[in-house]
């Protein structure tokens, strides 16, 4: 789960298509969380096995985007559920 800012003239549809072509990616969800005149704030959720993060970053940066933070990463043989008590509401 990535917190990303991109220029508003970039198509989120195109970005989603590019991200879905990255090796290991099975699903992509891009949600616009903030809109400004020239900048869009996005939450990008990428799911899959053995995702190539460097390539994900390259695709986002090549589109003019900036990754502000990586908010969630899940790895291993099973999904570790987190107690909501530890998660501050954003």
């Amino acid at each position, binding site marked *: 789960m990535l917190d990303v800012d991109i220029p508003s003239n970039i198509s989120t549809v195109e970005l989603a298509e590019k991200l879905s072509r990255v090796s290991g990616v099975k699903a992509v969800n891009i949600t616009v969380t903030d809109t*400004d005149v*020239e*900048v869009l704030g996005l939450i990008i959720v990428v799911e899959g096995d053995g995702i190539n993060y460097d390539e994900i970053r390259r695709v986002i940066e*090549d*589109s*003019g985007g*900036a990754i502000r933070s990586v908010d969630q990463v899940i790895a291993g043989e099973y999904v570790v559920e987190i107690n909501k008590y530890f998660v501050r509401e954003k």
Partner: protein
Amino acid sequence: MVLIDNRYLVLGFLDSVLTTLVLGDSMPNDARLVFIVTIINLITAFMAEYVEERSSLRHIERQLLMRRGSLLRTSLHRRAIYDALIKGLMFGAVSLVGSAITVLSMGIKVLWIPIIPIVALGSFGTLMSKYFGGNAAFWFILYVILGVIASFTGHVISRL
């Protein structure tokens, strides 16, 4: 996909016809004149657009709190170059047409005034007025006057 800017149709045609009218009588080599007008306009438009695009990228960098030049190796920068190139080529193509029409038809004159380019200018003014709902007669006359002044300037310069 780059949007074709109408200002380059107007600017390219007007600039090339008027420049050719001014320089036409002074330059014996017609093909060279068309070439010069086209190339200068192409390069000028490309550089002007590129500067504008770079300024826009810099503005986006500031908005995204990025370092200066961060967007230079991105698809945004490649698209900026592509857009500037397309607009430059379009300006060059319109200039080529305008300049070639003027050069090819400059032989038919009444006094110092080459009739066909001047009428072409007037017709272009009329077409332009239809685009924004202006007074067709006014724009026809305005463009004809511009053409007459340019050709008179060229006539005077050629006798210096």
